[in-house]
């Protein structure tokens, strides 16, 4: 079973692991690059959008949210302050109005009659005329110091006014005083009460003039928050308990609109404003809707005040930002899509090249060293491809050289082994062949010794029998001196001559091994012809036909002397061992092998041939095979083979006994390495 490795994070089902599982076989470099660039782009866009919206921490750069928030807060502040001033000015104006009326001496004169007779219409008409002059005064009443209505501008009837500390406060203030907003019977809108004491000519307060003022003109302006706060912008006025004084723009969650003076606003801005706070807040309004609000407290007098809230829905604040973000996101998505498409195209192209590179590397690793990526282009992949190709080329060249070197080493090894064997044979042959004449010399030397001893004895016997005839002894001496001793000497000379020839042959071979070869461009055809011509006498004498067919060979670079020696020897042997009973034919044929860059030269004869069993012996030193009817030392072919080896070539022999022999020698066309055998 093949062991599998699972990354620890993959086992936990991380996003990359899930994506990897989902993509299966498509989880390749291209997919990873596309996804990676996509994720990077999205992350970058998120950072940019976040920075754009929220600002950059630790820098003065504010985000759009903060800018919009600040802008809105300033706008809310502006409107809230404006409305506060409007309300304060409006109330001050009303106070001044009622103060001016109440302080007017005419008012006292006109109204004084009612103190004595409340049914007198004079004061009623006076109040009505004033009320007609001030449209916002819904009601004008004259109240005595006990708080009872003396006369009213509406119908002149005497009716009790709502009792609270309003009268006391007017008297204590001793000037215009604005009381809490109230809801008059029969009305659905709030009315502000402004009172001012009426003094008699001695300066004593005798009554209070009270105006119930309709704040519609104020509230209409109040509700207009301008365009800058948008559709949800709203201003709300509450009294000091949070009771709504103005109408509102939006319904409550139940769908109905809260009514002024009947609904208490519980939302934080209204409560804060009502209880004397001013500021800004981000909270929920009376509907429960998130809002940004500026709240202001309008202090009417130390006794009571009102709360003013100017607010805008957060969603309206966020809306333009959402549009901006939507725009950015839409643009980002388009860019993202374009990025993915362009990335896919580019990355696919690049990964295809990488795939080619990968496949080429795979085939290369499978020892197909000739494969190349052939990737063009100046980009990194192109550079990588070319680098790979160069590297492959260098590896291939190196491998070829190594292989060639190995082959050569193997050949050398074989040659060495062969040479070693031959050396052994040579040692054996030399020892055997030299021993043979040596034994002859030894034997005949002993024979000569004995002959000399016999001669001595014969001569001593003769000398002892002077004057006697010794026919036997004389005969023996004569035989010794004329036959046996010269024979011994002849045998000894023959043996030593043979030994000399053997030693000379060995010296020749030894010299050949030490000869410095001189390589030069050679014309093989001319070289062969020159050799044939050198043997002209023998050829003519024996009536031999020599045919030379040599291909158009490229210039052969080799050692001239060695080749002449080789070809001369082979031709000489061919001539020497021709059958005398048939016309000799020698064919010389040469050809070039482009693949191995070698030249093969064949020398074929129709001579006596060599027995198949003798062919391995013919290149051995001093070995002669077949009929020994010609002179020779058995060193010629050994000599030839040694020379051919030195030239880096080989020689082989094919022969049929009685039919002829073919010697095929192969040598490098251009010799680059000198061989030493």
């Amino acid at each position, binding site marked *: 079973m093949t062991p599998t490795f699972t990354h620890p994070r993959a086992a936990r089902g991380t996003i990359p692991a899930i994506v990897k599982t989902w993509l299966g076989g498509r989880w390749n470099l291209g997919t990873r690059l596309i996804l990676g660039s996509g994720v990077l782009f999205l992350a970058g866009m998120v950072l940019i959008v976040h920075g754009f919206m929220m600002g950059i921490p630790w820098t003065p750069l504010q985000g759009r949210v903060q800018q919009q928030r600040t802008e809105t807060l300033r706008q809310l502040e502006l409107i809230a302050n404006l409305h506060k001033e409007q309300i304060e000015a409006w109330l001050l104006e009303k106070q001044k109005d009622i103060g001016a009326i109440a302080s007017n001496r005419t008012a006292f004169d006109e109204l004084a009659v009612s103190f004595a007779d409340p049914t007198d219409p004079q004061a009623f008409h006076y109040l009505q005329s004033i009320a007609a002059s001030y449209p916002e005064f819904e009601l004008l009443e004259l109240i005595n110091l006990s708080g009872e209505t003396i006369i009213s501008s509406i119908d002149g009837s005497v009716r009790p006014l709502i009792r609270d500390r309003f009268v006391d406060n007017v008297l*204590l203030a001793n000037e215009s005083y604005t009381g809490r907003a109230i809801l008059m019977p029969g009305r659905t809108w709030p009315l502000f009460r402004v009172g001012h004491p009426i003094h008699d000519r001695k300066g004593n307060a005798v009554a209070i003039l009270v105006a119930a003022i309709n704040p519609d003109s104020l509230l209409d302006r109040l509700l207009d928050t301008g365009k800058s706060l948008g559709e949800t912008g709203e201003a709300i006025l509450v009294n000091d308990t949070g009771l709504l004084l103005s109408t509102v723009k939006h319904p409550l969650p139940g769908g109905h609109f809260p009514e002024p003076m009947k609904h208490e606003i519980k939302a934080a801005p209204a409560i804060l404003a009502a*209880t004397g706070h*001013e*500021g*800004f807040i981000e909270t929920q309004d009376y509907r429960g809707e998130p809002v940004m609000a500026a709240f202001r*407290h309008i202090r009417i007098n*130390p*006794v*009571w005040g009102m709360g003013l809230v100017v607010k805008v829905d957060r969603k309206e604040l966020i809306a333009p930002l959402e549009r901006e973000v939507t725009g950015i996101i839409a643009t980002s998505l388009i860019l993202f899509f374009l990025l993915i498409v362009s990335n896919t195209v580019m990355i696919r192209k690049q990964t295809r090249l990488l795939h080619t590179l990968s496949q080429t590397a795979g085939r290369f690793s499978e020892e197909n060293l000739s494969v190349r990526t052939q990737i063009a282009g100046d980009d990194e992949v192109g550079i990588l491809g070319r680098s790979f190709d160069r590297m492959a080329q260098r590896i291939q060249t190196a491998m070829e050289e190594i292989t060639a070197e190995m082959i050569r080493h193997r050949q050398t090894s074989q040659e060495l082994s062969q040479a070693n064997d031959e050396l052994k044979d040579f040692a054996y042959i030399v020892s055997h062949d030299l021993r043979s004449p040596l034994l002859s010399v030894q034997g005949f030397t002993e024979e000569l010794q004995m002959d000399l001893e016999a001669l001595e004895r014969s001569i001593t016997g003769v000398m002892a029998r002077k004057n006697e005839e010794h026919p036997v002894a004389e005969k023996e001496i004569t035989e010794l001196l004329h036959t046996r001793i010269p024979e011994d000497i002849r045998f000894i000379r023959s043996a030593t001559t043979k030994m000399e020839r053997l030693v000379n042959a060995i010296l020749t071979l030894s010299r050949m091994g030490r000869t410095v070869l001189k390589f030069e461009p050679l014309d093989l055809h001319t070289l062969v012809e020159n050799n044939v011509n050198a043997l002209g006498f023998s050829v003519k004498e024996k009536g031999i036909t020599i045919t030379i067919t040599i291909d158009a060979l490229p210039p052969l670079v080799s050692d001239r002397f060695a080749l002449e020696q080789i070809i001369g020897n082979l031709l000489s042997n061919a001539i020497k061992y021709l059958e005398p009973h048939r016309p000799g034919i020698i064919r010389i044929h040469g050809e070039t092998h482009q693949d191995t860059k070698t030249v093969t030269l064949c020398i074929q004869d129709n001579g006596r041939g060599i027995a198949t069993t003798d062919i391995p012996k013919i290149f051995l030193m001093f070995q002669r095979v077949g009929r020994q009817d010609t002179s020779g030392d058995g060193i010629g072919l050994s000599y030839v083979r040694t020379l051919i080896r030195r030239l880096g070539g080989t020689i082989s022999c094919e022969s049929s006994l009685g039919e002829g022999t073919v010697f095929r020698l192969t040598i490098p066309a251009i010799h680059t390495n000198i061989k030493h055998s």
Partner: protein
Amino acid sequence: MLCFFVLAFVISRWVSISHDSTVKAGDNSSYDRHHDFGTNEKILDLGIQPLWLPAGIVAEVMKRDRHLRRELRKLGMEIRFHPFSKGADVNRSLHSGQLEGGMGGDMPTISACANGPVRVTSLMDMNFTAIVSRDFMVLSDLRGLRLGYAFGSNAHYMLLSALERNGLNEADVTLVSMDAPDMLPALERGDIEAFSAWEPITTLATQRHGFNVIHKFLSTGYLYFAHTFAERHPEAVERLVAAQFRALRWLERSEAHLSLAVSWSTRSIHNFLGKEFALTANEMKPMAQKSLRHLWSLPLFPRNGMANDGHLEQATRFLGRIGKIPPHATWTSIKNCFHPETGERILKDANLHHLDVFDIHGVLPE
């Protein structure tokens, strides 16, 4: 070497700010000075706050009210005014017996009531205390920022209250204790990001420096006396409250009066600080006018504030919750210190108390 000194400087600044932020009760103002307090009850020592608008202006008029001095002389008494930088300092002198009366914001007044018998007689101020920040923000944005405050002042408690309302506490911000006049320079230097103070410092911060008021709190201020003094010398207390009302009426009567009083106030602030105040008299005048408007309409205790669950009771509960007043101090006990009838009686009998008899030093009698 340079880096070392820079680092040392930064650390020293941090340590100094950190130290400031840990300053607790008993914090002394750097504007404390020697006061020539009287040695007996015949000398009425009244603590005032020159840096408090409009109470400081009213106090300047009272200081020059020769009718008051005549009335007190009839009682065998004289009055001395002693300037303080904040209500907490006034309270300390009041409880130590150095002062017979003083002026303070609602929180210091409640604190004074909680720490000893005090009689609160009249309304000195109805104005806004504000939180001012360098940058425009809402209160929740104050988290993690350094906030300047005057320990024991109305603004201090308002700040804590505002933080609490927005879900923050003292641990969420760094409170840096400092005197009110030092807040603006500290905000300019960047030592703090916001501060809590009162008029005219807040207006100065917005109008002169363009800083932002991010929260305002309607605060009140009161005139109050040591209970024992008020028990023994009710006439003197009445004379003083009447002088306060008289001063208000005098200020309301003419803009020239207001201008004059503001110039007195700026001079007094200069003397108190020992340096020129940043606001000119012309700048202070409209602020004073606006602040005084509420007092001119009716200088009595705010009925809302005195009501149950009104802002004074809420303030009492808040101070109790944060441990700034003793546990035994309840709203009932605090409420008993407030005596609205004193002011009401004086207003109702305006002629009797000569509220319209103006004899101000430096101004021709009317």
